[in-house]
């Protein structure tokens, strides 16, 4: 079998790609997707760890994270849509009125 470390390494890579994507893209939608990527990486970590530890709880936890991800998407998209309606932009760089 493959060492769980590899799976987790892959997860870490995905997490970081997601994180950097969040920092590099200004389209709010794509930033969301990056967050989804990160959550997926978490799920992968949990599954791999659960398997390595011989523990089912890792898989159970994944369910909850999935639900959270879904809820976040709903609210997040609602926010994006409402902003888009007023400003016709999905670029978060345009939303930088408050600073300092």
């Amino acid at each position: 079998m493959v060492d769980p470390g590899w799976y987790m390494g892959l997860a870490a890579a995905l997490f970081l790609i997601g994180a950097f994507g969040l920092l590099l893209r200004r389209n709010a939608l794509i930033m969301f997707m990056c967050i989804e990527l990160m959550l997926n990486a978490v799920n992968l970590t949990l599954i791999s760890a659960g398997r390595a530890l011989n523990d089912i709880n890792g898989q159970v936890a994944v369910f909850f994270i999935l639900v959270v991800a879904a809820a976040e998407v709903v609210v997040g998209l609602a926010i994006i849509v409402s902003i888009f309606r007023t400003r016709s932009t999905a670029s978060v760089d345009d939303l930088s009125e408050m600073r300092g």
Partner: protein
Amino acid sequence: MMIDFLWVVIALPLAGALFLHLFGRFVGEPRAGWLASAAVGGSFAVAVVAALPFLAGSSHGETVVLWEWMPAIGANMEILWDPLSALMTLVVTGVGTLIHVFAIGYMHGDERFHRFFTYLNLFAASMLTLVLAGNYAMLFLGWELVGLCSYLLVGFWFTKAAPPPAAKKAFVVNRVGDFGFMVGLMIVFTTFGTLSYSGIFERAPQELTGGLATAIGLLFLVGAAGKSAQIPLYVWLPDAMEGPTPVSALIHAATMVTAGVYLISRSAAIFELSTAAQVTVATVGAATALWAATIALAQRDIKKVLAYSTISQLGYMFLAVGTTAYVAGIFHLMTHAFFKALLFLGAGSVIHAMSDTQDMHKMGGLLKRMPVTAWTMAIATLAISGIPPLAGFWSKDEILASAFARGGWFSALWVVGLVTALITAFYMTRQWVMVFLGEPRWDDDTEPHESPRVMTLPLAALAGLTVVGGLVNTPLRTTLEHFLEPAFEGVRLAHPPEGLAMFVLLAGLSVLAGLAGAGVAFLTYRQPREGWAGFERGFQPLWGTWEEAYRVDDIYGRLVVAPGRLMADIAALADSKVIDGAVNGVARAVRRLGDLARPVQSGFVRNYGALLLGGAVAVVIWMVSGS
């Protein structure tokens, strides 16, 4: 017995001052003055009664504590009643009373008449505190209070331009002296653990080392030089003539300025232990005597002449106490009080008559207009010139003789004293002649007139004292010395040389000097103006230097005042720019820090994200690097 009520001596004028301060306005013009005079006169009466035991020789002095003041440093309100303080008290109250009375006439019409007498009474009380004090702290109390009164009285005419600065100058210069005095007191306290006379003088011979005695003596000299206007602190006294003339007579001639002499006499037990201190005192005295006399030579202002003359005479007294001829010093103090008060009052009378002119060039020929003043002043002039048998002769001669007898360096001082005597006679005669003889030079609108009786009577009284005052201590009858001896127990007093021959010789010399000075002056200034003006020109540029008092004020201004002012300016600038600047700088720096940190909060969510991730990575790195 009597001593238990001695506080009355101080309390009477103090009560007078208090009463006049509160109700003087309602008392009205002449009455306020009489009240004040009565208060001082009352003190005089009490003092006379209280001094009787000393005459009888039945008492050597005692101390009474009134109340505790600063027990931690052994300073209480305590009265020491011994022959020395008794004599001083009598002089202060006696002459004081006369001057009070004189002032009633002199201050006539002044809108702050009652206030003037308030201050005078306060001064009397302060001066009495000074001389009656039983310890140095209380002496210092009086010492400073007379300074305060001097300040108040010199600056009495506060709306004029000159008096207020003069008053301030007097106080500040005195403070310089006080500084020395205080340091001296610190050493005294540190050495003895108390400031009480009794404790100090008894233990001084055993516990005081010569070095410390010198230190204390010199520091006391600084204080005394301030109060008694000796080199180098005499500069305030001429300016103090801005005060009303009775003030000059009372404070700046008869009483306050002699406090320094009193201080040194009182501290005889300490000076006893340091020849160096004695020599310094005597030298300062002699130098001041000569120095001031030369200045007095060339003055035009009638009061300035007297002021420098006072400084000069105080120099004699310092010479005396420095020679340890304390009795002679005190004796001269007393006689000087008589004739100098008389001179000042006479000058006041003249000024009064001349409608406040003080320039002697504008006087002349007043003898006929104001005979009482003229003749009484003549007596005083002769007295100060050392013409026997007037009071000044006896006392001055005793000083000079004592200095001569002490020998050594003091002989040199004796020569100085002798020269000074000559000069003194010259300038005093010059003054009298310029004022009273010769052609009238006064302005047309002035109508000189003799002063009212309230002024002339004190003149007469003082003249009487001037005539007979010297007889209390002649080589033939040393009454005063016997009287004072208990106060100088354990102190080796310097005496004139023994024997009548020496006395005649020395006295002859000084009389000769006096006569010479007086004669030359008389002859010179009897001439019309051109004559003596030419004489004065003959001494140029020396005469000019004297007239400008050696420009000492100027020099002090450049050497002390200006640099001090500069330092203060620099300090103030440093305070606002450097020290406060640093404080505000820190505040600004913090704000600046905030401004610098603001761009981090750029408003861009992706920047925030980067910060967040960066922080997270930093945390993680730190976490794992620890393990």
